[in-house]
């Protein structure tokens, strides 16, 4: 009995890492020459950085037993606003602050306020806002990509520090901040309490609506920053950018052991969850698996990872 408890606790912390290692070993065996090259490892991190960013945000709505289906659309809209501001002559830093940071926070706040005001499940609200945000992106861009913003911006965001790409540094340091936030601050712990039982949290003096709002603002902020990373990497703001990214974000969060029922989950595991998604994409590309098959594998993986988590959780 007690050994099982220990196993369960260990799995909570290292389970996701185990899955990642298994996948790495698998691809190394299948592609011994290319997959394990240092350049490819860096590439995996780079490819994962946007997934990690939006997954970090998605973690919070799922932590309160909700969900945010609009992260892909938020990524596109904030990226579009940032690009248009830069094209209109705004200083890139200001454009990022207004479009990426400000835009993300505002769109997240819209989600949060709608959830609080209507009392509907976030699934429904963000299903709606996903369409709305995507529609607005199309409207303000005339459904065509926006190019022509400064090289300085692109070079800074897509550059390297030593051998590490800037987006990787950015995503990992942001993860570190959020890790500290969830593990050490009162606000972070309150969010876990809301996730465990909203009613109990309410009667314990926690302002559930305020925390719900904050949760969706964090999600929006992360998607907004991912939007900035995305336009820098592509060199253009695509109106269809980030389509379907919510799937990857949710998958990363759930593979990272976060409970769909709320109140359980850890930031480092979400980062590893994001890396798993990136590694699979990368590995399948190297093995020249066609994109459509990649989707099939990805879907199968999401189900197996969650099933495994449930199985081991039940052993406790």
């Amino acid at each position, binding site marked *: 009995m007690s050994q099982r408890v220990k196993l369960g606790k260990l799995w909570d912390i290292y389970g996701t890492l185990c899955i990642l290692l298994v996948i790495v070993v698998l691809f190394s065996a299948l592609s011994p020459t290319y997959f394990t090259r240092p350049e490819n490892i860096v590439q995996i991190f780079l490819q994962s950085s946007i997934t990690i960013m939006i997954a970090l945000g998605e973690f919070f709505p799922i932590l309160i037993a909700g969900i945010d289906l609009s992260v892909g659309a938020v990524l596109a809209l904030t990226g579009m606003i940032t690009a248009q501001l830069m094209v209109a002559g705004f200083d890139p830093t200001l454009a990022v602050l207004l479009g990426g940071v400000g835009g993300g926070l505002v769109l997240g706040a819209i989600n949060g306020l709608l959830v609080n005001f209507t009392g509907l499940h976030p699934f429904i609200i963000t299903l709606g806002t996903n369409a709305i945000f995507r529609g607005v992106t199309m409207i303000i861009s005339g459904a065509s990509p926006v190019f022509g913003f400064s090289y300085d911006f692109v070079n800074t965001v897509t550059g390297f520090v030593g051998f590490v790409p800037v987006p990787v540094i950015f995503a990992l340091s942001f993860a570190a901040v959020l890790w500290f936030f969830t593990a*050490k*601050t*009162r*606000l*972070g*712990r*309150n969010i*876990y*309490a809301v*996730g*465990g*039982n909203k*009613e*109990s*949290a*309410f*009667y*314990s*003096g*926690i*302002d559930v609506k*305020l*925390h719900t709002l*904050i949760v969706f603002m964090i999600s929006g902020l992360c998607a907004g920053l991912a939007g900035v990373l995305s336009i820098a990497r592509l060199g253009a703001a695509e109106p269809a950018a980030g389509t379907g990214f919510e799937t990857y974000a949710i998958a990363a969060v759930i593979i990272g052991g976060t409970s769909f029922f*709320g*109140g*359980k989950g850890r930031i480092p595991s979400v980062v590893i969850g994001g890396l798993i998604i990136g590694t699979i994409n990368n590995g399948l590309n190297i093995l020249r698996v066609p994109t459509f098959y990649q989707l099939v594998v990805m879907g199968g993986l999401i189900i197996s990872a969650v099933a495994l988590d449930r199985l081991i959780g039940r052993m406790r």
Partner: protein
Amino acid sequence: MSNLAPNTAGPAGTEAVAPIVRMVGIEKHFNNVSVLKGVNLDIRPGEVHVLLGENGAGKSTLMKILTGIHEPTGGDIVLDGVSHSLVTPRQASEAGISIIYQELSVINELSALENLFVGRLPVKRRLGVPMVDWKLMEAEAQSIIGRLGLGGLDLHKPVGEMPIAHRQIIEIAKSLMKNVRVLIMDEPTSSLTSVETERLFALVRQLKAEGTAVLFISHKLDEVREIGDSFSVLKDGVSTGHGRIADFTNDDLVRMMVGRVVKQRFLAEGAIDRTSMPVLKVENVTSADRKRVRDVSFEVHHGEVLGFAGLVGSGRTDLMNCLFGAEPRAAGKIFLNGADITPKNPVEAVKSGMAYLTENRRQTGFTPNFTIEGNIAVTKSVKDAPLRGTWGLVDRKAERVTAEEQRKQLSIRCAGIDQSILELSGGNQQKVLVGKWMSIAPSVIIFDEPTRGIDVGAKSQIHEIIRTLANAGKAVIMVSSELPEILAVCDRVAVFRNGRIMDVLDGATATEESILSVAMRDGK
């Protein structure tokens, strides 16, 4: 604890009729909690057997084992002489065991007729197409209902529109159609008027005369004496007596149910000064719908515990929610030592030093994903933190000290404060919640059903805490549906009915009867 019942009916079955059902040495554990510890029960045809016991004694669990919902951990169930280690719901149903729960299981949207035949509608064929045979249903139903002496009941009306007594009769009729041999009735009279109760009893006597065994669960001893032939008593999962009801007085039965005769009281020792300023003053509190809570005013003085008694659904919990800001109010003010603290929401309530131990610890009490430490710490952290309880870092060191203190003070039985609250027994979970509220050093404490589902030991401990708080000058309010508990702890008893305080009785002189007569008084 001595077994007070003489062994009139030994396990060898000295009575004339062989039992239909015999439960021998039944044991049941949930997780690590032992709920039944070797319970015996014989049910004979043509007899009304009464099962007695306090709340939490294990009666429901025993019934759920008999009807196949729970598996027993140990013991034998003998059906018609055949011994089983457990019964499945199917076996129970084939043996003719049928149960009518307190919460009726009729489907309110369906008509009486449909309810009677639900899951087994008779079918006739017209041109080869199977169709519901309403005529056959009607005829069969009328004969059963007629047998129950209730002809003229509109069988086509949705049962949701019928009085509860009629719904109950339909449920009984449903059992009879399945050829019932053992009918279990769980507190069937709790929501019936006296006339309806009499009619039900006539029906029970008729079933008895037809040879059906009736197992009757009730807390009302007078009723039990009127309808019952034999009885068994459960106390804390142990059989503490059985025999013929006529051979025992009500006092005997109560002693078997409660065990210790000593009923500790925790009333204030000195006189309470009600002339000086009250600690808590509540003025004209009305709920937003102006129905559930209507214009309630009261005062709590230094050293006093104010109890709220009343029937379930009388609005006591709604009042507490209104006081705590958890439910919107149309009007009302709350003063603590003369200062207006009327909270708009629980955040403000906590910040101004109110504590509210809610009625349902699983739904509105504890945070299931937290440890003992986390559950105790989170409210204090919210109270201390600026910006509506959000700002600042968690001080683990200080929180561990606080949690440790509460664990010792309340003697919470656990492996350590890092244990998950889900692993604790109900009583210990409740103590953790008491500890959570104690840690904010509240000035106003509301206890709503503080000892529901808690064993006797933990109960008196919580009563002790309540008294200590009152003595320390806190305003203490206790809501309870258990009148003995109200009488044991409260210095004054506000009797609630239909969202109002009907009367405030002196705790020292109040009795269960005096409280009930106010709680059920008709009119305004």
